């Protein structure tokens, strides 16, 4: 049953565009899916290595901008009059570059910020995201600043014998997001169940003990940061080519907060957590928009966040698992409380 559950979930998700025809709801499904991928990547850092990165939206935004600029092309002049002209490239190259460049940024940020822990780590990551946001806002020649990058081409799918198919529609994008989401899920699940994943959990539980048994802390933290940033970059690329317009607001701190709420509500350090949390917080705006203004929705978000930390600090998925008494041997170990 436990093994079948992910497969059943994928089938259930895949059936959505077949019976759901309302464009607004389908749109909510696609954006929720994109944010679930981002939340899964954050969970790798927050849930498995225990590092609360509040600058995660930086990698999402970098992915979105890299992918959009690769496929749109640009013409800028750098210091010293060097002119850089880039002709538009196909969208899939943009996607690959988004993953690679976000991953490289994850490496650099990890190298810098893992020198400090706790509150200082959090503040360094936020600072990084804010600096990137200000660059996106002020480097108008490259990013158009607040005017936004518009007419970003959609993903194209090469069909043998049929030429190319532009993925304009919501259903087509939904399947694309689902497919990439499944790939990311598999990557994260393989990673966390491997030796590497156990090393990560070990340093979350007790860093000095992990060091004493020979785990190279920085190496594993950076590995997690790179993987996590690369997946967030992929989500950002999906976002850019789905919405087809992006502005510096993709770097908003509230997006990071949304990802964090999704992860802690669902259950950090569980594979299903970000998906459950993502579904809940993806659809609260859909339900709430009929009776609440955007501000009151955010007030609700904030209040729920406090409530969840108070009432259900472990998250929904671990609570359900405890309720049914199904605790996978591997994951059961991962949830041992750290020694106080």
């Amino acid at each position, binding site marked *: 049953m436990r093994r079948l559950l992910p497969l059943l979930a994928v089938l259930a998700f895949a059936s959505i565009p077949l019976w759901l025809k309302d464009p607004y709801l389908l749109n909510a499904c696609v954006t929720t899916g994109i944010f679930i991928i981002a939340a899964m990547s954050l969970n790798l850092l927050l849930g498995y290595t225990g590092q609360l990165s509040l600058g995660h939206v930086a990698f999402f935004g970098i992915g979105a901008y890299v992918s959009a600029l690769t496929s749109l092309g640009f013409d800028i002049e750098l210091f010293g009059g060097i002119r850089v002209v880039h002709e538009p490239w196909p969208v899939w190259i943009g996607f690959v570059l988004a993953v690679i460049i976000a991953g490289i940024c994850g490496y650099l940020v990890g190298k810098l910020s893992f020198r400090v822990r706790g*509150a200082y780590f959090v*503040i*360094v990551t936020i*600072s990084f995201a*804010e*600096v990137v946001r200000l660059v996106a806002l*002020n480097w108008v020649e490259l990013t158009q600043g607040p005017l936004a990058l518009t007419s970003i081409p959609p993903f194209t799918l090469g069909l043998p014998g049929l030429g190319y198919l532009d993925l304009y529609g919501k259903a087509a994008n939904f399947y694309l997001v689902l497919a990439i989401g499944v790939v990311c899920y598999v990557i994260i699940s393989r990673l966390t169940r491997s030796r590497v994943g156990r090393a990560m959990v070990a340093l979350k539980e007790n860093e000095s003990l992990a060091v004493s048994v020979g785990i190279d802390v920085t190496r594993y933290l950076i590995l997690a940061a790179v993987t996590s940033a690369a997946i967030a970059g992929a989500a950002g690329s999906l976002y850019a080519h789905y919405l087809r317009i992006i502005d510096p607001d993709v770097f908003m701190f509230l997006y990071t907060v949304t990802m964090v709420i999704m992860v802690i509500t669902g259950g950090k350090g569980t594979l299903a957590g970000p998906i459950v949390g993502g579904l809940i917080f993806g659809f609260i705006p859909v339900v709430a928009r009929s009776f609440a203004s955007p*501000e009151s929705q955010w007030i609700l978000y*904030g209040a729920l966040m406090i409530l969840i930390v108070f009432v259900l600090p472990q998250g929904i998925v671990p609570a359900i698992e405890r309720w049914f008494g199904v605790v996978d041997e591997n994951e059961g170990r991962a949830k041992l409380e750290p020694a106080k």
Partner: protein
Amino acid sequence: MNEFLQHIVNMLILGGTYALLGIGLTLIFGIMRVVNFAHGELYTFGAYFVYLVSTVIGVNFFLSLIIAVAFGCILGAAIEFFLLRPMRGADIDTTMLVMIGAMIVMQNTEQFVWGGVAKSVLTPFGESTLALGPVSVSWLRVFVFFSALALIAGSYLLINRTKIGKAMRATFQDRDTASLMGVNIQVIYMATFAIGSSLAAAAGALLGPVYVISPHMGDIASLKAFAIVILGGLGSIGGATIGGFILAFAEEVGAGYISSGYRDAMGFLIIILVLMFKPTGLFARSERIG
């Protein structure tokens, strides 16, 4: 040269209020180990409260400053009692999440109540200015600067010369020992958060009338306050004061001579550079408050 002097004058006014923000946060973070994301919202709260009391209700401007600070104190005590007291003993990340939730609630409540349009406060100073050689400064700014200095001096005396200040310093050094010596930790925590919050509200109440008041003015004030704390060293009031002026100087000079778009980036660059090269801050004499 005149332009530079004008930047220096602006730096002094901005720096005084930044120092108040930084002192409030360095007390809260130092003594309670709470990463107070709501700090910037208390700053916004102070600014809006002055607007409410002085411009909407029509109370005397100076009296409304005092009322705003008093309500900042009450709000801080309430946050401590309802949100932080139940979280005692939780790890730093958990309380951080609670404070982020509080930040989102407060920020959007301000937006909800006041709308997105910026407000400006009517002050009794009007347009009159003080000429200081080549630069002229409005009397409002002069008043703001000296009020900030008075509050900085007041908090220094509070921490170093009073009984509760002594208890706060003891709690900062070693909470358990302080508790064994008869210091009521719960009272100290609530006092710390209330004092820190009222200093943030005072910063907003003073700086709000100088510029305009908008719901998003506090968005990065918390992070700027962190930049100041990191720069000055944890728990150091003197460090936070100097840190506030350094940040204001970096912002003024950065905005004036590099690019005004990157004004807010200065604080973040300071955070990154200080944590990379001198993580204890520039002025920390070991971990000591005062």
